[in-house]
């Protein structure tokens, strides 16, 4: 079920109503049932994969807590991680691996006889497995007590607002809140803030991301047909499309959970107002970057190692992060380029002793723009269909050099984008629901009216699915 569907618009109020009408002790069952229904609206059979992950890691958690031998604990965790990663690898990376094996064998004129799989990736599999693995690792390091109620654990993995595209929550945060759902009461504050988040989320997904998507798709479908300025506009639009698409999803997730009194973590904090790549990653897809920091970078030794090892750790984390997004070398290059830029920034900073600037000074703005340009260029590897398409994009920028927009972007789209950029600046280090709380009622209702109008009358009409659903 998609958040921007009629199905969800009917589903959410029914679930919220039933949630508050259901006796506290039975609420986990209601939410679990609703979450299964939500997931099964995509491909029903894939729920079995999720149940496999749930049962495995639930059992692993208890075993880890019960075992006293460090050796046994290590073995159990290793087996659990192998099982989770294998599942992900099978669905997501099998064809990629096979493709590479074929290419490798071709060099020696050997035919690869392994058949390619014709399967659809279960929606949100990368998110579930990471959330579940995070839990077992936390139990292993004794940071988290093992959950002994299968229902609550299942709900932690399946909780419908965040199950298909995050935020990737830690058990400490989400699991413990779900444990308390029997004590949640309907409060005006939760409902109004939840609705504000959903409203703003729908606005940026439906009016910003979906309108920009049409132009981005045109550019990437046939880059050589367009001139430099059009390509630059298309690339810039993609930066805003992916941000508003994913941030929009996250806000709707946060808002839906908030209606039930559950607080999910912020996944974005104005990433395009970052002045460096390191700051960008502390503001973009925060739940994933902190996951990689805590469960990969630190176990690899983090920063407290020799320079060469640290360099390698950074490159490993960013490249794996790229691979997490998609099974292709373009994604790996996308991650690696971020890693490389991060390292260059650190090196320059150490060399010239650059001082951190505040965002809204002249040099701060220059840094923000510089960072935006870098991120936008690197996004090409994320969005490109394949390496040849990526090559065509860069070729088109230089070959068809004409500073005339043959793209004909309507004024409406520019105005909406301008409004979004302005609101992102106004909401710097803040969130729409919190911003509203500090404003007088008439200001709040003016913004509600504008957002409602934009959603009703100006949304994109080509029904683009959420980009991160494919991961």
């Amino acid at each position, binding site marked *: 079920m*998609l958040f*921007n*569907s*009629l*199905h969800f*618009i009917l589903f959410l109020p029914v679930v919220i109503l039933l949630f508050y009408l259901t006796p506290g002790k039975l609420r986990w069952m209601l939410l679990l049932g609703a979450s299964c229904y939500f997931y099964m609206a995509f491909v029903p059979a894939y729920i079995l994969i999720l149940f496999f992950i749930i049962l495995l890691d639930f059992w692993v958690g208890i075993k880890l807590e019960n075992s006293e031998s460090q050796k046994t604990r290590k073995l159990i965790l290793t087996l659990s991680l192998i099982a989770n990663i294998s599942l992900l690898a099978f669905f997501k990376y099998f064809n990629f691996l096979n493709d590479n094996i074929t290419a490798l064998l071709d060099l020696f004129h050997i035919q690869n006889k392994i058949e390619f799989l014709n399967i659809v990736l279960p929606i949100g599999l990368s998110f579930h497995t990471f959330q579940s693995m995070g839990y077992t690792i936390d139990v292993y390091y004794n940071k988290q007590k093992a959950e002994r109620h299968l229902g609550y654990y299942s709900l932690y993995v399946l909780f419908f607002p965040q199950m298909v595209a995050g935020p990737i929550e830690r058990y400490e945060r989400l699991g413990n809140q779900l444990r308390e759902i029997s004590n949640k009461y309907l409060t*005006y504050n939760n409902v109004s803030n939840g609705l504000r988040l959903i409203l703003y989320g729908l606005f940026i997904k*439906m009016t910003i991301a*979906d309108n920009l998507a049409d132009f981005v798709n045109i550019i990437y479908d046939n880059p050589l047909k367009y001139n430099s300025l059009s390509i630059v506009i298309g690339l810039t639009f993609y930066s805003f499309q992916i941000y508003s698409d994913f941030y929009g999803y996250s806000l709707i997730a946060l808002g839906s959970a908030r209606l039930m009194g559950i607080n999910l973590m912020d996944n974005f904090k104005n990433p395009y107002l970052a002045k460096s790549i390191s700051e960008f990653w502390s503001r973009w897809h925060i739940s994933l970057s902190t996951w990689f920091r805590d469960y990969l970078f630190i176990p690899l030794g983090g920063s407290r190692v020799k320079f060469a090892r640290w360099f390698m750790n950074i490159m490993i984390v960013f490249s794996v992060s790229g691979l997490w997004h998609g099974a292709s070398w373009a994604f790996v290059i996308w991650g690696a380029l971020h890693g490389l830029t991060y390292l260059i920034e650190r090196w320059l900073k150490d060399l010239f002793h650059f001082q951190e600037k505040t965002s809204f000074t002249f040099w701060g703005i220059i840094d923000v723009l510089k960072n935006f340009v870098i991120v936008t260029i690197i996004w090409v590897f994320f969005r490109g269909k394949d390496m040849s398409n990526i090559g065509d994009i860069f070729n088109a920028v230089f070959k068809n050099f004409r500073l005339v927009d043959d793209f004909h972007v309507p004024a409406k789209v520019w105005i909406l984008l301008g409004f979004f950029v302005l609101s992102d600046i106004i909401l710097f280090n803040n969130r729409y629901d919190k911003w509203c709380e500090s404003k007088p009622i008439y200001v709040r*209702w003016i913004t*509600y*009216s504008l957002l*409602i*109008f934009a*959603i*009703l*009358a*100006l*949304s*994109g*009409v080509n*029904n683009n*699915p959420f980009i991160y659903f494919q991961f």
Partner: protein
Amino acid sequence: MYKILLKILIRLILVFAIGLVCNFVYIKFFYNEDLIKHGDILDDFNNVIKETDIIYLAESSNLANSPDDKDKRKLSEFINDYFPSLKIGRVNKGAIHAKTFLYLLKNIPDTAKINTVIVTMNLRSFGAGWINSKLETPLMKMNEFINPDFPKVVNRFVLSLTTFNNISEENRLKLVKKQWKKDKLAIPNFKYNSVYEWDKALFKTGILDANGNRDDAKTNLTLHYIKNYAFRIDTLTNPRIKDFDEISELCKSKGWNLVYNIVAENIEKAEQLCGKELSDIMKENRYLLVKRYNKNGVIVVDNLELVRDELFYDKDFPTEHYNEEGRRIVARNVAMRLKEFYNESFTEKY
């Protein structure tokens, strides 16, 4: 508690008021541009309906003409020749079906002078292939946009939701195949029970030419005929039946004369390629429609077998595209039935 309820009530009223204002602003400043983009057919319809006595709603059978035609006018224009004092307005678009016709008719204002509605009834539009066609997604979107049952801004909003059967080509084909397997042909003493079986068997053997070689062009055409026409209309579940039922109800309530115009199909070719089994199914479906809607007081013009093979100008796909002579034959047949309403205006033309 009372205070909270009052607070919620005030906000609900405010949201409703915002919705009304949004609808007003949308109609005033954005609707016309959207109408051209997402509902051009309604735009055409609104222009036509102003000065029309009879409205003729059709798919591509009222669009097509052969390059060899001397008179390239549309079928509805030939009909109009028989009633020179009347104005027959036409709205046509390729692949549209009864659902769209229904929404268009619902949009006719009470002040319109129209008194007769002619709606094309295309046999293929009742089949699984057309119902699940890839053209259906844009059609459904267009239908939602022109739906007069909701405020215009709501229709625009629904357009932006992922409400439509926006499915991949692979899944769409799966859906069609499933239906082809499920629907039984119910032909006595015939070796195939479903379209799926018939299509599969014929695809395997192919049609052979005089030298015993597989004739690919002929095989493909035969398969097209089977997939397009080999089905039995289930009046309980077929969505097009529901739409035609609603159209007849609507016309009855508005006091408009209603004519269902069963378009001519290339029965000759169907029988020649696929045998009597296929032409019989097509004829039985036709009888079913004639019987059902005659009973409802609708005039059903039966053109099914009226046009000979050589008058169809598409030779590699089954269509309802006729040359000038074919169009004139159908036009006359329709005109003769229209005479029942407009005897004084009728002029024997050809």
